[in-house]
Structure formats: structure tokens, C-alpha cells
């Protein structure tokens, strides 16, 4: 790991790790990684003060390619690990990164609860509608019928709509990004980090190796920016736009202020913090 950067304003390069990304050429995740670098440098965070948590998948390898602290956990468990980190280090920015299988298949239960708790992290899901790392089975965001080499019969179930799910479970920052719009994506991530609460950014990040349908071109054709006058404080508008299948809107759908997980922890602490042995001694007293 490189030593601490002390320049005033950090550049994208200051966040790069020693390890080169191992993704396939043309993978959407490169764009997301760059957007992360950009967002971090916008905030001018010292890499030693950033923690990136991920699950398992091609996308979840991202922390290895940065110079931040990182925790590459196990499949589907990035959310609880992030919660544990935030409970202990409530002032350190935490990014969570991972794939659609990680977030919406094995991990969706934790996602619902992380959102409900309004855990103050920014979660970027790199959505490619397949399980890249295990060689291309369809994921919960695959449209019904999507066929891949590993799922030749086609996806059997309708796709989940991550934005609706997030909105319905009380998410306080809901957005959709696209790997090939790096500037906009970097901006969303930077705002998601700045948001006080759970920021959820579903991000189209094509897998050219295993998903030959949902390509860069596919998303370029299918997406459109949210209207210029869109009001991200309007919950029903957010629901309505999130439900749209054609076009698929990009941008910030919803943002609200609510007490956070970290607020609760802070409020739960008494004014005077005591030494553990004193607390134990006092309890002994009560037990005599």
C-alpha cells in the first residue's frame, strides 16, 4: 500500500491501488471504479479514512483496486458488515460495492434492513443482470426469458425492480446510474456519500462476457435522464418513474431526511461514559 498522500487536493490517481483490475476487457465495472475514484477525489477524502465494503462477485473485487481500507466479505453480506463498521466508526465514510446477485438474490434480506435502519453508507450496485464471476447465470434483475450460456432455458422469473424495492422499504436516497456515463455516475456517488442516510445507487454495468443482450448499446438506447424539473422530494413521482420500463430513467429519484442508524447509536449513549471496570463494579454492587 502506498504511503499517505499529503497534497492539498487529491487526484483520481491517489485512490488507485497497486493491484490492477482483473476484469475482462470491456467490463462495465471499469467505468464504475473510475466514478468511485472521481467521487472520492471530489470529497478529497484521505484514502486511509475511507472504507469500501463488498460481497463476492466480479464487481465485489473493486476494493482490491483502490488504496482505501476495504472488506471483501462473503456473498450477500456486505450490508451487515457495513453496519458493524459504522456502529464502531460512525464518522468514517463507508462505500458498499457489489453485484446484482450479491445485492438482490442472496443479500436482499439484509438490504431491506440496512435501508430500514437508514444506515449512513453509499451502496453502489453494479447491475449486469447476470452472475459474472460464476460464468453468467441469470440474476434477479434479468428480464424473464433472458438466456445466457449458463442459463440456456432463459430466466424463469420476472426481474426485481431495485428502485421500487428501495423506495418501498424507506430508502432515503434512491438513484440509478450507468457505467458509461462516468461523470454523472461520479456525481451521484459523491452526492450519495454526502447524503446523511442510506444512499442506494443501482448502476447499469454491462458484462460483455456473459450477457450479450444487456450491452452498453442496449442501455444507451433504453435509458433517459430524469426530466430536468423532476422533484426528488416527491415520493409518489419517484414511485411512478421507478415503475417505468420504457424508458429506464437515470438520475436521483428520491432524497429525504430521516434519523439514521448512527443517530440512534449516538442517542443511546449516556452523557457520561464510564470505564468498563467501573460499570462492571457497579453491576456487582446491584447483584449483591
Amino acid at each position, binding site marked *: 500500500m502506498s504511503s499517505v498522500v499529503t497534497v492539498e487536493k487529491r487526484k483520481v490517481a491517489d485512490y488507485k491501488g497497486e493491484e490492477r483490475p482483473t476484469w475482462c476487457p470491456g467490463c462495465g465495472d471499469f467505468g464504475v471504479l473510475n466514478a468511485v475514484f472521481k467521487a472520492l477525489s471530489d470529497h478529497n477524502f484521505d484514502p486511509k479514512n475511507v472504507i469500501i465494503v463488498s460481497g463476492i462477485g466480479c464487481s465485489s473485487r473493486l476494493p482490491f483496486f483502490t488504496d482505501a481500507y476495504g472488506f471483501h466479505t462473503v456473498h450477500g453480506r456486505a450490508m451487515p458488515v457495513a453496519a458493524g463498521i459504522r456502529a*464502531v466508526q460512525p464518522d468514517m465514510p463507508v462505500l458498499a460495492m457489489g453485484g446484482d446477485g450479491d445485492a438482490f438474490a442472496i443479500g436482499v434480506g439484509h438490504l431491506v434492513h440496512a435501508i430500514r435502519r437508514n444506515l449512513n453508507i453509499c451502496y453502489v450496485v453494479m447491475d449486469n443482470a447476470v452472475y459474472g464471476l460464476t460464468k453468467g447465470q441469470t440474476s434477479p434483475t434479468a428480464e424473464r426469458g433472458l438466456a445466457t450460456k449458463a442459463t440456456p432455458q432463459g430466466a424463469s422469473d420476472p426481474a426485481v425492480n431495485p428502485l421500487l424495492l428501495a423506495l418501498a422499504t424507506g430508502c432515503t436516497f434512491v438513484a440509478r446510474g450507468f457505467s458509461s456515463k462516468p461523470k454523472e455516475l461520479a456525481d451521484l456517488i459523491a452526492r450519495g456519500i454526502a447524503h446523511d442516510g442510506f444512499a442506494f445507487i443501482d448502476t447499469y454495468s454491462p458484462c460483455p462476457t456473459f450477457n450479450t443482450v444487456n450491452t452498453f448499446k442496449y442501455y444507451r438506447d433504453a435509458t433517459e435522464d430524469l426530466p430536468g424539473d423532476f422533484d426528488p422530494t416527491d415520493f409518489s413521482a419517484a414511485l411512478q418513474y421507478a415503475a417505468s420500463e420504457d424508458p429506464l430513467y437515470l438520475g436521483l429519484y428520491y432524497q429525504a431526511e430521516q434519523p439514521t442508524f448512527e443517530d440512534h447509536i449516538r442517542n443511546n449513549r449516556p452523557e457520561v461514559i464510564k470505564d468498563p471496570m467501573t460499570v*462492571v463494579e457497579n453491576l*456487582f454492587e446491584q447483584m449483591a
Partner: protein
Amino acid sequence: MTRNDLVIRVAGEAGEGIVSTGQLLTQAALRGGFHVLTYSQPPSEIKGGHAFFQIRLNAYRSYSKGDSVDILLAFNQEAYDRNAAETKDDGLLVYDPSEVTPSADSHFVQVEFPLNDIAKNQLKFPIAKNVVAVGALAELFGLPTKHLDSLIEERWLRKGEAVVQKNLDALRAGIDYVIEHVPQRDNFALYPEKTHSGEIMVSGSEAIGLGAIAAGCSFMSGYPITPASDIKEFLEVHLPKTGGHALQAEDELAAIGMVLGASYAGAKAMTATSGPGFSLMIEMLGLAAMAELPCVIVDAQRAGPSTGMPTRHEQGDLNQAAFAGHGECPRIVLAPTSVRDCFYQTVNAFNFAEKYQTPVVLLGDTLLNVRSESIPRPNLNEVNVIDRVLFSENGNGVDSMNGEYNRYVLTENGVSPMSIPGQAGGQYIATGLEHNEAGLHRYDEATHTIMTQKRFRKLERAALEAPEADRFGNPSAEIGILTWGSTVGSVIEVIRNAELEGIELDMLAPRMLMPLPDPQLRPFIESKRVIILPEVNYSGQFANMIASQYPRDYVRVNIFGGMPFRVDWLLDKIREEVAQHV
């Protein structure tokens, strides 16, 4: 007759004051200088159903719940029917004649005690029924009134003077009734020859909570499950006082996930669960082992498999604690042998976790976690707390070649200095993938071989620092009893009773079960002619572990009915063995 051991059982409908009656009595007895050990059986069903609370009072320390009951207070007919068999033939039966009709051939000393009538008609205060019962029982075994008076004052003070007085009246009514109607109560009076001073009354779950706080735990996440929920609830209330936090996760996968996150972020962290929840934590136990993250997992065992019998006792999770987890997955397993030991082994669990950066499983069980015992107040000055080794720039953990921090630098004892997010130059990626010293994932033969050895080298060292084993009996006895966990209580009493018959026994109970502490085990195993291995499980899980490392013959004694060993039953078994081996 001088009696220094007395078992009182209060039985009735769950949720009707059984537990509060028992607790009041327990606390009063503690203040009266008795050694107290409780045992309760919550109903199997949701509400209602039969429940009892049992208190063993002793002039000396007792180690088991007591095989049979001296005084049975039966609130209703079912309570009588279910508990009569466990009551001694010359025991005392106290019952309300309006509720209970004892069988015609009962041998008990019987005391009719119109509890409901006294509470309702005499005191006009029906809910005081339990306090009346407490007064009566206390008088039976001869507890000085002052301890009860002051307890009642403390308990009802915030409800006002009038309520206190009403309860004091109820207490007095119970006492008076006994004085009047049980003239020969000497037989049940307890004469403490040697009383303790200043002991505290704690449950196993509380002792674990206290141990965690003392060890410096600052984060706990759990999910409700019998009999472990108490630990979470205790820490939810008390951990914030130290600046820490305990919370309820959405499930056990999340609970252990949060614990690993907290540990990565620098905290001493734990979770507490029982079998079903523990089974859900296995994947992340492996992550902790691979990423070398300190953490403590308390498994309060209950009878299994599957949902099993949530309120019943079994030592059935040792296999799981020692061997679950795919791949070669190092972990330390500790098992406290008493309520008091729950405190100390919890401290040890955190110390081992932090020192060796490895998951530590602490095996409690229904018997230990639920019961309360009077225990000597731990001397906190003697409690040694170990913190994790952190890397320091230009020092610990820094590669001499390139001057960079290597999270998994190879060392003699396998322990590599950690960093905490925020530490400059300490950045690394914690991962469940195999990795090199820098923490980068690598799949070559050399790396996997060396890193596997590194992870297990830590255990080898830990085994040498295992907490002292629990010993009891005559060290030169030819017959050894090798056991673990809460079964130690029954075994100690067996040894005491056997001694009276001239049978010499020697017990060894290691508190570290994985890795097995060779310096404790080998001399014991090599020096005994016969070794008996009693466990509350079917397959002899500990016996199998011992046998796999120390080839010889062992006598296995197993019960698996959801109850702990009866002292008399186990002594019988041992007598049989002794007879065979003479």
C-alpha cells in the same frame, strides 16, 4: 438434625409468579449468607403450562441443582402431580388445599397452606399470594426476617409506603401461618456453619455479559433465541454505559456479519446465540478465520438437533463448535464449567480472540445460562485484559524490504499486527480469499500452504496458554473423570459423595476444547488406569475428540434426555465401572 443442604421447589402455572416467588427467596437467602444455586424449567409452551423454579440452599457451595426436592410448594394439582416423584419421601409438601389433593399414599410431611384464602380473604390483597409463600418458605428453613423485610422495602419502595406495608403484612402472614401450623419445622431448618460474605447472585448469561464488558467488548449484535437472548438484552442495557452498543440484527447471518464489521473497524465484538442461530453463522465463522478477525461467538447450547427442545439442556454442540466450517478453519473453543467460570472464560474468550485474531466460540448451555448462583465477587484488579497488537509505522508489521505494512506478515507465532481504519499506511483488504502477506488474493501452492500453517500456528500457541483446567478430587486416584462444561457441577458432587464411600476419583475438565491443551491432557490420560467420560449427548462428542488424539480405552457415559446428570445416577454408573475394573 443439622441440615446444611436444602432444595426448595416452587411449582405451578407458568406466568403466575413462580419465578418472582423464587427470585425473592433467592435474594433473601443470599443476603442471609447462604450459598444459593437455582434451577428452573420454563414451560415448553407459550404461556400457561407447567413451570417450576428451584432453589438449592447450602451452607457450603453447591455445584449441581440437587437430585431431589426437600420442600415442594405446589400451587396447583398439576404442579403436585408432576413434581411429587422428584420430591424426597421424607420431604415436605406445602400446598393449598383448595387447589391440590395429594394422593392418598403420599409419604410426605404435608402442610396445608390456604394461600389463596390468606391473600384474598385475610389480606384482601390477592396478588400478594407470592409474598405470603415467600414468608412461609423462609420461615420453614429459618431465614432471619430482616433480610426479607429490607428486600421488600427495596422492591416496592417506588410504589409507595402503603404498598410496602401491604407486602410486609403478606410476608408476616406467611411467617405466622408456618409458626402456628408447623411446629416441628426444625427438620427443615438450615444451619449454616460457614456462611459466605458478600457474594453476588448472577445467572450464567449475566456472568457472560459482565465478562464481556470487563474484557472491553464494545459491540454486540444478536438475534433473539432461547436461552441466549438474555445476554443480548443485558448488553443492550449496559454496554452503552461504556460507550459501546448492542443491537438486535435481522437474523443471525446479519448478527455475525455486524460483529465482523465491528471487529474490522477496531472493536472487540461478540454475538450470542443458540444452536439454530449458530448453524447460520458457520459461513462467516470461516470468514473470520480466514481474514483473521477477532470475534467471540457465545453458543448457549440447548437440546437439538434442529429446533429441538428450546428449553432443555444438552451438550450437543461441541462437534459443531470444533468442526463446522468448510475447509480448514481454525477457531478456539472454550467451555466454562460454572456460572462463576462464565465470567472468567468470557474474559479469556476476548483475550484469545484479540491476541490470536481468530474466532472464539464460548460454549454455554441451558443449565449454565439460565441458572443463578451465588458466587464470590470477582476481583477486577486481577482480571487481565489483552488488546490486539497493532502495527506501527516503521515498526510492527512493516516489511523491512519495502517499508510497507503487510497485514498478514509471517511471524513465529503466526500473529501479524493489525491496523485499524484511519491508521495511515495501514490500508488493506480483509478477505475470505486466500491471500499473501499483503492481503492480496493469491492461489499458488506455496501461499496456501504457508498461510494455512500460519493460521494453525496461532492455535498451537494458544493451546499452550490454555486457561487452567478445572480439577477436583484426589490427583493420585487411579480412576479419572474427564469431562467438560456444566457437567463438571454434577461430577464434583459425585466425587464428594464417592469419597464418603471410600471411592477415590480425580476429575480433569479442560476449559479449552479446541485446540486440545496437550500439557493438561496427556499427563492425566497417561496416569489413570480408568478414564470415564460423562457427557450430556448421544455420541460422546468430547470423547471422540479425546480418542482421536490420545489412543487408549475410555469409558463413555452418555445421557440425552434434555436434563443434566443426576448425581446419584452418575455415582451408580461409576460404582459399576469401579466394580468392573477392580
